[in-house]
């Protein structure tokens, strides 16, 4: 069996190098085809009719006018009479037509008679949700009551972070075509190998009937694991139209409403501490909604990172709303819990009149990796100019523009998922590597190729990589930052297994046993005697008519040290706040990110840029606005569903903690960890700048001005 361990840091030619995305030019030039770009011959367009009511029962539905419309090929009723509609935007019917505009117009001709029922769509005030609140009980550790009694300082705060959507650049949807009993399915998914069986199950057909293809996808962030109702309806519309390809993608407004949200988190936090800043107790009473299904909270997450605070009382209430259900959102619940923990700690520091950097550092013993967090705090402070720029809360000088710094915290797993890879070496020397995985735009293609090329001693361009198709060996969906560890490990093993077969073919010619051979710089050579070598192509010719094709698998229960999980991270935000207008400008975010073996520092840094950018929207501008009376989401366009543009982002400074010690841990995913600290860091920076906590994010001018007003009062 080959030795699969990663080559030593100083011997790596491609792994650990900042190689640009292999599909970068294709994407930047628009040549990359996403499923939503497809325009197949004879393709029909699907459109959905959705409910305008947040809660209703369908009395009757009349599709006759739509069916009569010229160009309409299929009409399907989704919500049959008697169906209870539980949120505005719920799917009621679907149409396929020869043109998109015909499909959309036909949908409007469907007449639905609804019995409108009472709805609840807002949970920001718990007192207003009535029976929709479902208390989840209390978790107590230690003796919080005694700890609060004995505390030198008790600090209390109320904080809130509302529901927001994933808002993927490529909306949800798919193209589906049938050929007899075989279906070709072009989804936009985080799981190329898993989504086919998922759809097959809904349609009650064998999973073998579904061929999935997806070369590129425009963001999922946790919202694109399922084949979804619209996937099944697209398949049915196609079948009802004689198998013609049907393209059904949600428009932006529908996507924002029904294709996944991140749960809110609201609540009161009380902290106890000694004079020296040692935290002695945590108490939180929180509530959240993730839509109709409520909104749970794993009590173990509180207090975030500082989990070993000895005395804790954690209460949580889930609230069911007439709104579409939550989906995993980049580090489920972590950004919300991180925000509430970091701001409560910073408020405690302010009560103690203590530098929060000291408070976060002092209490690091409560974390799983005290030394790592302390070192990261130090590094982040150094990069942010903390000692020069930080000041006591509100002590920010004259003039309307106030500057402040704040700290945020992170933790995450990120160990590799189950993945299989097949490496094939042909007698002409060409190499193909195949995995049923997906590149979400993160650089997965690039890192797999780096690993394969490094393992085979070949240049990057000698590897042909095939992914994005379920005919290749299966890999798990991309969730939980598990992809890079999974696919790199399976690729490493598969490539070395194939290489061993090639060694066996050339060993006699080189007069050395297989375990004394190595592949370096396009040659197979004898270890310690590189003069004894054979060029790659010549070596492969020795295979004659035989082709080598070897598998490799990452087994999450036995990773052989190739990958692992568990990272921390610290961020420091630097903001300027105009106290006359309440406008917050982000100057900088410093990201100090713990990591394992970094396969590609460039794509790793990109993960950090992307994470901070996504998170800062939630800190400053992004939220779902629900209307109490109509029960609808009001900001369903990108004008009022506010996201940062380039000029709103500020300067993002990334420091990856690359060191031999971390490297030895193996690969750890970085998709999620850097998204966790940003909101807390920005909120703390604003509090530092203006001298008062803005309790609810996003910190829009109205909320900032209201907080300043309260301080005056």
């Amino acid at each position, binding site marked *: 069996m080959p030795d699969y361990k990663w080559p030593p840091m100083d011997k790596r030619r491609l792994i650990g190098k900042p190689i640009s995305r292999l599909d970068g030019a294709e994407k930047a030039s628009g040549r990359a085809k996403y499923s939503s770009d497809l325009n197949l011959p004879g393709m029909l367009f699907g459109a959905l009719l959705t409910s305008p009511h947040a809660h209703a029962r369908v009395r009757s539905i009349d599709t006759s006018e739509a069916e009569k419309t010229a160009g309409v090929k299929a009409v399907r009723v989704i919500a049959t009479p008697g169906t209870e509609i539980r949120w505005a935007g719920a799917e009621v019917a679907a149409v396929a037509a020869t043109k998109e*505009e015909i499909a*959309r*117009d036909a949908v*409007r001709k469907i007449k639905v008679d609804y019995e409108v029922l009472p709805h609840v769509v807002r949970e920001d005030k718990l007192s207003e949700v009535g029976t929709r609140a479902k208390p989840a009980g209390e978790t107590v550790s230690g003796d919080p009551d005694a700890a609060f009694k004995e505390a030198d300082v008790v600090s209390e705060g109320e904080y809130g972070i509302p529901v927001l959507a994933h808002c993927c650049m490529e909306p949800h949807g798919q193209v589906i075509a049938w050929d007899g009993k075989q279906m070709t399915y072009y989804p936009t998914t985080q799981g190329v190998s898993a989504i086919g069986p998922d759809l097959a199950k809904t349609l009650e057909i064998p999973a073998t009937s579904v061929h999935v293809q997806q070369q590129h996808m425009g963001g999922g962030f946790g919202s694109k694991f399922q084949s979804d109702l619209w996937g099944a309806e697209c398949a049915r519309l196609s079948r009802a139209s004689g198998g013609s390809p049907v393209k059904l993608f949600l428009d932006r407004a529908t996507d924002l409403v029904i294709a996944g949200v991140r749960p809110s988190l609201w609540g009161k936090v009380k902290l106890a501490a000694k004079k020296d800043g040692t935290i002695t107790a945590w108490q939180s009473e929180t509530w959240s909604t993730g839509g109709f299904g409520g909104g749970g909270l794993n009590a173990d997450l509180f207090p975030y990172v500082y989990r070993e605070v000895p005395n804790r009382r954690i209460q949580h209430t889930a609230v069911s709303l007439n709104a579409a259900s939550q989906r995993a959102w980049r580090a489920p619940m972590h950004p919300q819990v991180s925000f509430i923990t970091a701001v409560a700690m910073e408020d405690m520091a302010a009560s103690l009149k203590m530098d929060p950097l000291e408070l976060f550092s002092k209490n690091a013993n409560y974390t799983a990796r005290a030394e790592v967090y302390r070192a990261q705090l130090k590094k982040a402070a150094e990069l942010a100019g903390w000692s020069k720029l930080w000041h006591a809360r509100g002590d920010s000088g004259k003039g309307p523009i106030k500057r402040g710094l704040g700290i945020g915290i992170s933790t995450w797993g990120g160990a590799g998922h189950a993945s299989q890879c097949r490496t094939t070496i042909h007698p002409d020397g060409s190499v193909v590597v195949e995995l049923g995985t997906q590149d979400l735009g993160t650089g997965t293609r690039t890192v797999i190729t780096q690993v394969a090329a490094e393992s085979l001693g070949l240049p990057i361009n000698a590897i042909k990589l095939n992914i994005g198709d379920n005919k290749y060996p299966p890999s798990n969906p991309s969730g939980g930052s598990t992809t890079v560890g999974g696919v790199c490990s399976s690729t490493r093993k598969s490539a070395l297994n194939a290489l061993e077969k090639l060694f066996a073919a050339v060993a006699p010619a080189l007069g050395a046993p297989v375990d004394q051979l190595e592949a370096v710089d396009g040659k197979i050579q004898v270890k310690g005697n590189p003069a004894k070598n054979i060029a790659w192509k010549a070596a492969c010719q020795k295979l004659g008519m035989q082709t080598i094709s070897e598998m490799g698998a990452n087994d999450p229960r036995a990773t052989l040290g190739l990958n692992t999980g568990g990272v921390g991270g610290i961020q420091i935000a630097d903001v300027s706040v105009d106290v*006359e*207008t*309440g*406008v917050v400008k982000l100057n900088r975010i410093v990201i100090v990110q713990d990591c394992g073996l970094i396969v590609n520092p460039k794509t790793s840094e990109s993960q950090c840029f992307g994470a901070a950018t996504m998170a800062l929207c939630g800190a*400053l*501008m992004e939220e779902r*606005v629900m*209307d*109490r*009376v*109509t029960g*609808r989401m*009001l*900001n*369903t*366009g*990108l*004008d*009022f569903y*506010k996201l*940062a*543009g*380039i*000029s*709103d982002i500020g300067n993002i400074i990334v420091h990856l903690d690359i060191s031999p010690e971390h490297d030895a841990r193996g690969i750890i995913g970085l998709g999620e960890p850097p998204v966790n600290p940003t909101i807390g860091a920005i909120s703390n920076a604003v509090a530092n700048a203006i001298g008062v906590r803005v309790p609810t994010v996003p910190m*829009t*001018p*109205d909320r900032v*001005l*209201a907080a300043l007003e309260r301080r005056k009062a």
Partner: protein
Amino acid sequence: MQPFEYASPKTLQEALGLLAARPGEVEVLAGGTDLLNLMKEFLATPKRVVNIKDIKELGGIQKTTAGLRLGATVTLDELLSNAAVRSEYPALAAAARGVNSQQMRNMGTVGGDLCQRPYCWYFRNGFGLLAMKDGKSLVPDGENRYHAIFGGGPAYFVSASSLGPALIALGAKVKLASSSGNRELPVEQFFLAPRTAQDREVALRPGEILTEIVIPPAAGVRNATYEVRQKEALDYALATASVALRMKGSAVESAQVVLGQVAPTPWVASGAAQAVAGKTITEQVAEQAGQAAVAGAKPLSGNAYKVQLARVAVKRALLEAARGKA
């Protein structure tokens, strides 16, 4: 989108012949940045769309003794590329820059800026200009963070025009043409606050086209626009103020102060204008004018912060104008 007939006339005369007497039957297409969205949402359902971008006489910027003439189809980008606009009418240039998307500035026209429909999310969700449901406006107790603080209803949306406040402050007029004749209106009178759901928010009559805007010469007039905006990338301002100060020495002889994003029309703040008349603009005078500008504000349940923003916008616009050249 409802199917429609498309016409692309080459002359104004031809265009006027293609318009209709009944409201909503024909829509005029210039940049299309708003109309196409309205049509997709069935908020506009014209039977005919008349493209006016190929009509030469509706384009171009000319400087004459009467001032600056802007053809209705001049794009915001053309406006910003014009040296006279940039140097003499900084209030207008700042307002155009406030449409902070290069793509929108490339396509959007000055006429379209004045004629576009409100962005009120109740209107855009199909509840009409007055945002009515079951005989009651949804706005006063609803989600009104971006709504009006002046006017007192029944319309609570804010005028979507970015250029309107600056044009009013600068004393501009619009010219309107129809097959039955031409007329001219001060820009201030072009904007209307609807009283009923059938009313429109501009004075255009069915069959009428906005053909040009004329801004009087700005000699001796210091002007500026300050926009409070949360984002630098594509976003609407939260409150704006455009000011024009006719100077006499270092003092203000007369002033115009116009607020944007605070009422169903651009909002002329005559109290603020009076507060600076005869005075030299100082921090304190500007502050007092800001205070005067919002004296009659009637904020709704969730937009009192806009009173503060309007006050600050006036103060900062005045200070900026005072620093500028006459």
